[in-house]
């Protein structure tokens, strides 16, 4: 982590200095074809940028920091990993209704393979989870699954995608979702990651879980 912080230092110096150098170069060369005038340009207030509030109007989803999320990717990844390990230990998941849903080793294996994919061709694992979720939600809905790296930004996107899917489900599918071990497990993984951010900077990376990603759910069109 310390190495990462130090690695950014050259960029912090390089980019501003390069920009300043280029601007000064323009300033030095411009007088040869443009003599000094009698009025300074650019002193007139032009918009919110003139008083520095343009940064506030920048797209809020651009980064987690602008939303107050200061959790590190390692903390998010660790939380996901811990959640998976907990599922593997208990072989069950508690539904939002309080009911205990048993998970088979095969169901767990599919979820773990998709979320903990560490490279290579992960499409088979994603397809397997997609099929498993679709089947448990009644079979008349197709759920697409992709996995993104653990970061504050991606966590916001993953939770937003899951909530969008939940809002799109029909009555029958909602009932099925509450009784679906796989859906509840994926939901728990995301909820656990969200809880990690409550204790910003908290969370430990579980053994073997450093590369755990975040599942993005969506209804197939």
């Amino acid at each position, binding site marked *: 982590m310390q190495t990462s912080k130090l690695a950014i230092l050259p960029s912090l110096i390089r980019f501003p200095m390069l920009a300043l150098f280029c601007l000064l170069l323009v300033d030095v060369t411009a007088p040869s074809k443009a003599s000094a005038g009698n009025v300074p340009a650019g002193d007139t*207030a032009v918009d919110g940028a003139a008083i520095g509030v343009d*940064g506030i109007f920048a797209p809020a989803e651009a980064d987690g920091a602008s*939303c107050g999320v200061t959790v590190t990717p390692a903390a998010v990844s660790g939380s996901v990993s811990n959640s998976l390990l907990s599922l593997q230990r208990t072989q069950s998941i508690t539904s939002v209704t309080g009911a205990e849903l048993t998970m088979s080793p095969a169901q767990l294996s599919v979820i773990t393979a998709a979320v903990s994919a560490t490279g290579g061709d992960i499409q088979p694992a994603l397809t397997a989870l997609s099929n498993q979720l679709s089947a448990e939600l009644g079979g008349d809905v197709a759920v697409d699954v992709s996995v993104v790296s653990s970061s504050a930004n991606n966590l916001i996107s993953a939770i937003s995608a899951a909530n969008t899917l939940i809002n799109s489900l029909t009555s029958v599918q909602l009932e099925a979702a509450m009784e679906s071990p796989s859906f509840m497990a994926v939901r728990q993984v995301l909820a656990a990651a969200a809880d990690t951010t409550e204790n910003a900077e908290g969370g430990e990376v579980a053994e073997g879980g450093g590369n755990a990603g975040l599942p993005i759910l969506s209804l197939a069109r």
Partner: protein
Amino acid sequence: MDETFAPLTDSEIRELLLIDPNFVPEAPRSSPGSSFLVPSAYGADWGDAFVGLSGVTAGNQTDLDGSASLGMGFGDAVDNIGVEVSVGIISLNGFADDGIVGFKLHKVFPEANNLAVALGWSNAAKWGDARNSPDTFYGVVTQRFDLDPGEANPVPLTVSLGAGTGSFRSRGALLAGNNDLNFFGSVGVRVIPELSVISSWNGSSVGVAASVAPFDIPLVMTAGFSDVMDSTVTGTRFNASLGYSFSF
């Protein structure tokens, strides 16, 4: 005893299933500015408003002076187009004797990594001494690049490039008294979430500044020097501004 339980309604089930993004505060966190003395393509949408005060020290041929501005947004730059309307009192020597009303149409493209573009007319309406200034039309493109992607603080580098008339004229155009198109730009790096450093070219001189947003409220302080090379007759001047934005 006959105990019956009413089945959960769809909305009750959704309420149970939805994941609470409890880390997102209700109010957006403050953020320092990304440009200095030139516009960026980011602007206020409907529900955004701002007020600000600026001050500038005396130059070679000018006196210490201040300005005030307020503005608000309409529309939505992500869903369609945002429109920022601002009113500027360009001199506090004789309060509100001189002023301008400006517009900026701005658009954000999320699918292009939040690339933003804007078209503006800074002094569509003007009164007092402001009537002596030529029209300032401009177009600007702003893009943000994360220097440390994936980290809690991704160290965003915000680059704005634009072209405009009026306030952005070259020294040659100023001398010749015409209102030819000229280029401007700025580069800002948010070193830490509360602080950014900015350098800019306003068409006739270089400026450098720092912008800080140290509080959890959207209050931004920006201070810097315009014309650091002392290449215009007005010379190097210290500029400071205080901006506050709010949502409604």
